[in-house]
């Protein structure tokens, strides 16, 4: 079975632009979460979606938004890009959203903001 897939793998944008990142979960998984990993740090939680509804949000500004589609794939949007948004953006999927449900990560999208 295919794992979590993300597109694109790399992206270069300039300050002020907008970006959309895409994620397809493992087949049968209904929950998708997004994480941001900056260099030298661990991943930081951004959003969780379950059954197309937002179920959790981390400490990120409103420039970050996301949605989940009926096929459980998801998009992460970031508006008005800042240099500090340069990071690896990771998508993870799980069967459910409850405690003890292991999350499986995709390879990530490397975003560079110039």
């Amino acid at each position: 079975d295919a794992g979590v897939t993300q597109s694109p793998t790399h992206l270069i944008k300039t300050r002020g632009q907008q970006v959309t990142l895409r994620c397809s979960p493992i087949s049968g998984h209904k929950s998708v979460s997004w994480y941001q990993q900056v260099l030298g740090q661990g991943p930081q939680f951004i959003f969780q979606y379950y059954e197309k509804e937002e179920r959790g949000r981390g400490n990120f500004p409103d420039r970050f938004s996301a949605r989940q589609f009926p096929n459980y794939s998801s998009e992460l949007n970031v508006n008005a890009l800042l240099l500090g948004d340069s990071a690896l953006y990771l998508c993870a999927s799980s069967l459910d959203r409850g405690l003890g449900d292991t999350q499986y990560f995709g390879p990530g999208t490397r975003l560079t903001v110039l």
Partner: protein
Amino acid sequence: DQQVKQNSPSLSVQEGRISILNCDYTNSMFDYFLWYKKYPAEGPTFLISISSIKDKNEDGRFTVFLNKSAKHLSLHIVPSQPGDSAVYFCAASGRGNNRLAFGKGNQVVVIP
């Protein structure tokens, strides 16, 4: 505020010996803990997990120990192999959801 802390950012170990990685957490609401391994240019790969009702979980060469009173967990890899060279992240979740709080990671280098 770093709720999950991994000190000693890097570790070098001889092939065949034991690798021990440590992790401390501050949030007493955490009750599920995981270890992930990450190679460059790849996403984190799930290794092993433990819930707060246990103090030990073993899976092949990997064993995780949990000391709730000390808010401390450790990952033992034995015997270490060159393919284990990677960054290892400790993560925790709790409060009825599975959003993860990660540590900063430990770089492990296994010397053949």
